[in-house]
């Protein structure tokens, strides 16, 4: 059985996470992805770890290996005329182009939809850009941290009432770029479906900032609706919804509904303090959290994580462990579902990677190829498929075009 997208051909010009994650989502569903990297250094993700043994190597970056499995890699310099011509040849038979070349660099190399449409009118070009392709911040530089902030979610996390001196806290990893990439993949598939009907290509631009801002839970609306600013400082409206330390790790104590709190109190053996009026309902527990927190902390500290998790879940209370990486990689539940996948890559070795975000009943998610080494498929794609003669390839290599 092959993936549902096995008849789609994608060209990716991607660095780091946003565009590479979008094309990974499509590649894992069966699409062919040809990834174009800069000759020499390649995708910046190759410089970022984790690396086996901690030693940097461009073909051993855990981040790169994860994001680029199932892809073919060629090196082409789009800034050189001959490089752009090769790029156009690849696009002539492609269904999608997914890129995150920043707008000033798009202008510099001439990466514009109107130009590419002349090469292939059926092409769907998807531009995943920090701030989009218009507006006063179009050309602003941005790393993931900046966009997590610009999208309004970072301001909501960190510190707490007694730690106002600490800055807002970024969530681990390149989360803004993952969200931009996932939105880009969804929009691109929308365009693929539209093309079945209209028989025409088009240009999609995705703003990473807007993808993040769309995920602010209810907090965005606090401003338009009641002119209130959401902040990480101050008390939470209801409690307990906090991380506590057990004997052997951390657990998330989560009682949102009153029946969950009652079940938790019962689980704790109905201690006397739990009957105090100031803890009478979830709003009161929020207001009087400073008084309540030490009681819960003391009791939880006598427990072990998995035991408390199971006991709470047995009473339909939605506690969860604060999973460590080791917990996840050894979880019996994830093992039973076959979540992690082993990928053997000749240079980096065999490791376990996060697997399918969704299990398809008919058309499985699948890893067919490990991530490519830099320029691994130059010969196969540029030589055999585009028909460039060996002498020509040598010449382009000498000029630094490939």
């Amino acid at each position: 059985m092959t993936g549902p997208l096995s008849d789609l051909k994608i060209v990716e010009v991607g660095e780091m996470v946003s565009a590479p994650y979008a094309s990974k989502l499509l590649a894992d569903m069966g699409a062919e992805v040809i990834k174009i990297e800069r000759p020499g250094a390649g995708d910046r993700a190759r410089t970022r770890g984790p690396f086996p043994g901690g030693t940097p190597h461009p073909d051993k970056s855990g981040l790169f290996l994860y994001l680029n499995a199932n892809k073919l890699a060629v090196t082409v310099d789009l800034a050189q005329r001959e490089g752009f011509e090769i790029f156009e040849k690849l696009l002539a038979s492609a269904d999608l182009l997914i890129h995150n070349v920043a707008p000033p660099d798009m202008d510099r190399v001439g990466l514009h939809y109107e130009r590419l449409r002349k090469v292939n009118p059926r092409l769907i070009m998807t531009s995943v850009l920090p701030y989009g392709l218009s507006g006063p911040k179009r050309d602003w530089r941005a790393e993931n941290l900046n966009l997590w902030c610009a999208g309004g979610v970072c301001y909501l996390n960190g510190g707490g009432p007694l730690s106002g001196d600490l800055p807002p806290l970024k969530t681990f990893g390149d989360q803004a770029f993952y969200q931009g990439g996932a939105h880009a993949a969804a929009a691109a598939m929308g365009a693929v479906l539209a093309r079945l009907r209209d028989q025409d290509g088009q240009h999609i631009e995705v703003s990473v900032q807007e993808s993040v801002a769309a995920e602010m839970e209810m907090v965005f609306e606090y401003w338009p609706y009641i002119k209130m600013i959401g902040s990480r400082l101050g008390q939470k409206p209801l409690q307990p919804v906090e991380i506590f330390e057990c004997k052997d790790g951390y657990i998330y104590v989560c009682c949102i509904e009153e029946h969950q709190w009652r079940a938790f109190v019962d689980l704790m053996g109905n201690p006397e303090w739990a009957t105090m009026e100031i803890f009478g309902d979830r709003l009161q527990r929020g207001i009087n959290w400073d008084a309540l927190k030490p009681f819960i902390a003391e009791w939880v500290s006598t427990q072990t994580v998995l035991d408390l998790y199971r006991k709470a879940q047995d009473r339909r209370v939605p506690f969860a462990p604060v999973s460590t990486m080791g917990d996840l990689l050894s979880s019996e539940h994830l093992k039973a579902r076959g979540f992690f996948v082993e990928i053997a890559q000749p240079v980096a070795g065999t490791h376990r990677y996060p697997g399918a975000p969704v299990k398809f009943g008919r058309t499985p998610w699948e890893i067919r190829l490990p991530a490519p080494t830099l320029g691994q498929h130059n010969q196969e794609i540029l030589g055999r498929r585009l028909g460039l003669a060996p002498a020509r390839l040598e010449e382009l290599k000498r000029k630094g075009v490939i």
Partner: protein
Amino acid sequence: MAKPPLEGIRVADFSWVWAGPFCTLQLAHLGADVIRIETKTRPCVTRMLPPWPENNMGLNRSGYFNQYNQGKRSITLNFKVPGAVEVAQRLVANSDVVVNNFAAGVMERLGFGYEQCRRLKPDIVMISLSGYGDTGPYSEYVAYGPAQVPLSGLSSLTGYKGWPPMHSGFSYADPNAGIHGAFAVLCALYHRAKTGEGQYLDMSQWECAMDLIPEGLLEYAMNGREPVRDGNRDAWMAPHGIFRCKDLPEKIMELTIDAWVSIACADDAEFARLADAIGRPELATDARFKTLDARKRNEDELEKIITEWTSQRSEHDAARELQSHGVAAAVCASNKDVAEDPHLIARNAFVRLNHPEVGAQQHIGIPWQMSGTPCAVRAPAPCIGQHTDEVLTGVLGYSEAELTKLRDAGALE
């Protein structure tokens, strides 16, 4: 006239709270006719959560609900009353996609498991976005949005150096599941268009969130080590942090609203531009800071120097000045900053449609733009049951008399 991509696709939306509605929001953005199946006997949780204008609660007044249900229709059914289940069955039979985010087994008990839906519509695409997935020993565990962040591993990786694990500050696994779920539905619709086959999609929100932390998981898989929490810093960039700016003078609703700017320097050249921007060009050649290794060794000191500069100006001025020197910087934006961002306003990123109960409120719109098949939010979020009559008569073929009978029996509550 160009049509949106999913024109003619109908979604029977059994979902509630956030993950499922975020999934169907994307499908509505792409032009699908999303019909939410609600009940007045147990309204969607988000209808009962703030904010409400003037702080007056009302099922149709929640900004939370109204953000994530834009462009959808709503019908109300009370499954305990005879006739209501048949309405939902007819809706499934007239739909292309069924979406739910209940725990495993709930849809089966309601009579709308995949096998049951398939009998109603053989090529149906059905997705379930549950907390733990449909199989495995914990499949019936209870999952609430905020608990999925620690469960996924994100919390053990997130936190200030030397501090306990921290949350992400919002139920991040929910919208993450929603956007990936929408993508999966679109892939399945593509497969159906080519082969005529529908299928069932089993999403675990937990698993979907683990796809966002490969560096953490691979550090353990490759090297057997748990990553060390390190605040806003980054092993391959320095500076990389959020720096204090001049505080706003006022307290708002008893909260001190503080001001911060995020700054990241990808390489030595960008650091040299930063040094210029803050009026300290000599730092670029200072042995303590001129290479990444040196900056990582002296990062505390570096952050102190940068804070001396940022704390003298507003976060907006700091970001602008740094950007004018080519340095990646952005305001650590509050919801107010986002709402008033001149860039987002210039891009028409917001939607202001007239809603019968809350008026024309500002909402976040669609994060993508398409040149050939434009997407637009077509309607504000529905009031509860707003479209019951038009869907039953217009889509499902009920007569006025049948409608009245169902209503009188209480089936449409």
